């Protein structure tokens, strides 16, 4: 499989001159295309910071992050914005839809930024709303949608730009169990059927159970990664 995310030795330090706090400490992370990965750990373990660094929303103090071979730590602010637009999809904990726009407009907004023509936009919106099973809510404002529906629209928005991968920060945190399960079904389906790469931070055991790879962070360090365990098992099997 192709490597999508290749992070080497990345660290993020807050208050470096007074009492340094390592939010992310010397992390190495490799994510391949089509992975469905959960980033878990207690509060303050650095999950969101790591997602922000990988998403190019923040810069690491040390290390490099290569997305599809491009080192995003070396991009200028404007290039980074453009890079995010074309390569990374975001799903936020609190949905963050634009309240004055309809569900359709919220999704279309990203494609307008990408200067995709109207016909292509309409086709993509139709397809995306079918995938998230909200074809009847196209023209509803976010305030008229449930939390689960809003988060599904946020997933459609993240997918609209055809990103290389999607970063989701606690996507089920504000959802009831039925909505969370529904959302996970959609994300799982997109991952299996369309080979879309997901990396999400979560506390939610239901999400962890559905993930095919689980990375555990404690105090900014990766303390376990199920992919490494699998690889070790695979290596052992090969030797036998």
């Amino acid at each position, binding site marked *: 499989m192709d490597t999508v995310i290749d992070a080497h030795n990345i660290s993020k330090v807050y208050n470096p001159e007074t009492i340094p706090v390592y939010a992310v400490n010397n992390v190495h992370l490799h994510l391949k295309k089509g992975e469905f990965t959960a980033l878990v750990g207690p509060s303050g373990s650095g999950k969101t910071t790591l997602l922000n660094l990988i998403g190019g*929303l923040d810069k690491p103090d040390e290390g490099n992050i290569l997305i599809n071979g491009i080192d995003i730590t070396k991009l200028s602010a404007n290039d980074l914005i453009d890079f995010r637009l074309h390569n990374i999809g975001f799903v936020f904990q609190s949905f963050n839809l*634009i309240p004055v726009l309809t569900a359709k407009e919220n999704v279309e907004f990203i494609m307008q930024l990408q200067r995709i023509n109207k016909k292509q936009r309409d086709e993509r919106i139709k397809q995306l709303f079918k995938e998230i099973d909200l074809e009847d809510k196209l023209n509803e404002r976010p305030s008229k949608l449930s939390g689960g529906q809003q988060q599904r629209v946020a997933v459609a928005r993240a997918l609209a730009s055809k990103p290389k991968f999607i970063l989701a920060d606690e996507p089920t945190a504000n959802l009831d169990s039925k909505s969370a399960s529904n959302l996970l079904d959609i994300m799982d389906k997109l991952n299996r059927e369309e080979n879309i790469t997901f990396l999400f931070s979560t506390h939610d055991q239901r999400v962890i159970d559905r993930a095919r790879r689980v990375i555990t962070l404690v105090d900014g360090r990766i303390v376990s990664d199920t992919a490494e365990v699998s690889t070790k098992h695979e290596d052992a099997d090969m030797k036998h």
Partner: protein
Amino acid sequence: MRSMVIILSIAVGLFAGIAVLALYKGMMKSRVRTLIYAEAGHLQIHDSNFKKDYDPRYVIINGSKIIKEIASAPGVLLAAPRSITQGMLATTTGSAGVQINGVIPELEYAVSQLKRKIVEGAKFNSAKKNEVLIGKKLADKMKLKLRSKLVLTFTDSSGTIVSGAFRVAGIFQSDNAPLDEKNVYVDIKDLNALLSISYAFHEIVILLDRDEDVSSIQDNLRRRYPGLLIESWREISPETDLLVKTTNQYSYIIMIIIMIALAFGIINTMLMAIIERTREIGMMLALGINRLRLFTLILLETIFLTLAGTPIGILAAWLIINYYNKKGLNLSGLGEEMMSSFGFGMIIYPEFPIDKLAGVLIIVIATAIISCLFPALRALMLQPVVALRR
């Protein structure tokens, strides 16, 4: 709600700006109307030496013939003669320097609305001799009442000091208090007899059909009567001309002051909008909106809100100004004395400044754009990670 605040701010600012311009336009028009129709006329003709020291010898030669020619000229509404001299008004209690105007009553009533200005007493009685109309301010100052006697002293055309006893027939009050204090009106026959100038006179006051014809008719008259001094109201009353010109500039200064206040309102509201929408802006930055687009977005939002408020402001201004244009706006609350000392009437008829509307719109839109720069720059400085945490 926030958008409504900006729309209303723009509407109120625009309304205030237009209202100020309308009020000033109304005041200036009122002042110019008063000057032309109640004081000086559109044009005045004198002997070229007369105005140097108001020597009564300098009558208009062939005045009767000239006034007939002018009165029948196209574009001329009315031409009236006046005999004028500077003299002393004396009563038993005191004296004051005055300008004595000898007038043909019926013509003067038409040319300067003298009859309409009479607040006590009556117009000239043709059966009586040596009647005088005096201004209220002068009457108060000299403690003169109706039927009071006074003596007017001046030099005649030969330089001899002459006096005449006159009786107050009426007291007038115009919108111009200084004029009321310095002018008295007597019948031209009575004055001419004392001045020994028989049927001659010193001044022709001309009213035209249209204000726009002043320059062309003035030029024609200058060509036709090269020996005479022919002046327009602007030359007769340069202070009024200057007042009109400077008031135009003042009205823009006041408008700019209003706009500065409006700008602070817009800055405050847009800053609130940015603070309220910090997460939304952070999200847009995270998703990939570039800073130029974000700046344009905020700019366009302000411009659209301005454009939404503009018709409301203009419509409100148009309705209210038109209402007061018909009914008149009573400014006596500002002080009757003060208003009349500047030659303004108490009732002003504001006029919608259609000629200045484009300028006003440019100022308002520029204000809105300049005001949103600071909030827009603040939004541009937001870091997505920080903004999303809010």
